[in-house]
């Protein structure tokens, strides 16, 4: 089945998958924290649109609730909170230099190829093109991990963690028409609690090592050298 034989809904979902993947790549290459948070909010918005789209076309009303939760949590509340913390700690002017940006980006691209390779057997045995979107969501998860590895700021790690959750959420919408509502609510509140806890951790890391650069945690020692 090629894309021109699919209905408009499938095409739209696949385009959304591509755009969400692009947002992950944009996050990976971002040096400034505020812009990183902005792109994260953008990814959340795309997820909201995807959820609303599949709710509309599959006539699955509880997906509207998921879309609403995503909108409130991932587009508004968490970005707002992270932004406030970044501003409070005066890190909005810091430029985080990646070691080798082009290499990291190409690494991201090869992760995408890898996730397609891994999911290829599933793609072949399944009848629907939807499973292809699983490859994208797996690569979003892997890209989120790469983001956490390659960036040094704790805030970027949190954004990476949240984008991993975005990838999982996308997989849930596309492949299984949404998780059961209980699971959905549970994960949403987990994410919320995690965000709050991260906020507290920020201040603790900040007070103990005077920076949010986690590379400096390596230098912590019990004894003074």
């Amino acid at each position, binding site marked *: 089945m090629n894309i021109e034989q699919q209905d408009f809904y499938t095409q739209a979902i696949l385009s959304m998958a*591509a755009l969400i993947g692009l947002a992950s790549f944009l996050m990976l290459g971002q040096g400034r924290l505020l812009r990183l948070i902005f792109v994260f909010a953008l990814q959340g918005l795309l997820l909201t649109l995807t959820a609303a789209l599949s709710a509309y076309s599959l006539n699955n009303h509880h997906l509207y609730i998921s879309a609403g939760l995503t909108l409130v949590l991932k587009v508004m509340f968490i970005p707002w909170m992270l932004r406030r913390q970044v501003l409070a700690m005066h890190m909005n002017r810091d430029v985080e230099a990646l070691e080798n940006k*082009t290499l990291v980006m190409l690494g991201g691209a090869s992760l*995408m190829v890898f996730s397609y390779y891994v999911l290829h057997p599933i793609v072949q045995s399944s009848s629907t093109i939807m499973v292809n979107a699983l490859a994208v969501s797996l690569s979003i998860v892997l890209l989120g991990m790469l983001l956490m590895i390659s960036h040094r700021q704790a805030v970027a790690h949190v954004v990476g963690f949240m984008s991993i959750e975005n990838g999982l959420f996308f997989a849930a919408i596309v492949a299984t028409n949404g998780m059961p509502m209980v699971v959905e609510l549970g994960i949403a509140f987990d994410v919320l609690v995690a965000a709050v806890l991260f906020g507290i951790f920020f201040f603790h890391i900040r007070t103990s090592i005077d920076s949010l650069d986690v590379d400096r945690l390596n230098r912590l020692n019990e004894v003074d050298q």
Partner: protein
Amino acid sequence: MTWLLAIFQTLLFVALAPLLAGWLKWCKCHLQNRQAPSLLQPYRDLLKLTRKQPVVAEHASWIFTRAPYIIFSAIVLAASIVPLIAVDLPTAAIADVIVLVGFFAFARFFLALAGLDIGTAFGGMGSSREMTISSIAEPAMLMAIFTLTMTASTTNLSFAIVHVLNEGLVLRPSFVFALFALMLVAIAETGRIPVDNPDTHLELTMIHEAMILEYSGRHLALIEWASQVKLMLYGVLIANIFFPWGIAQSFSVQALAYGLLAIIGKLALLAILLSISETLLAKMRLFRVQEYLSFAYLLGLLGMLSHIILEASR
């Protein structure tokens, strides 16, 4: 008859390019609250330059004086490949997109050679910068184009456009990426604002201008004209590949007129977009250009990947 039409289309291409440059300048001036020159000003400039006697440096070799003609003819040949108002013209059947990229590379090679030939500091600097940029821009452009050719399973532009036309409206993730990649490459290759400023003569930043500083008279006119045609070429590529609706598929007068109107409308819109982005953005540092272009390459790569992953499932 079709050959006549093909020649007419190429001539139209060459004749309309200064108008596009004038329109672009007009939009930009109005966005920046300046008084705009007339739309015909680029024609007047070219005419004035052709009337003047070219001054050639004493140490210039034959490359310096021949280069403008070579560049201009390479770009005009490139223009003859690209369908402007009609598809299925005989010139389009001769060469494909890879040849098109080759023509661009050929013109650029001679431009850089001419910049080096005269032996001034600026010329060499401009040439080296141009080559640095093009060495990354070219793979990015090819990547974007390959995404298209894989979808249409042909490297011939005119067949690819017909393929896109026949399919009707299909939301393709890969085309979104290819479109963005091609736009970024077009901005870099034609020397527009985030990469290079075409209106400046500031030594530190110029790329294209630095190479042609020593040119004057009709030589300069040819090079300027060639770069205007190149800008229009990229515009037509973007407009006709991704939004081919309106292009003439038969050779009746009505269809051709409609095709002409459509492409003029699309180019005018593209120019407005370009002038808005040029007004909003500041020129970036030269050392950030490779970051910008590697992003364009990444977009092309993602387009290819999403074509393979999302669209062509077996």
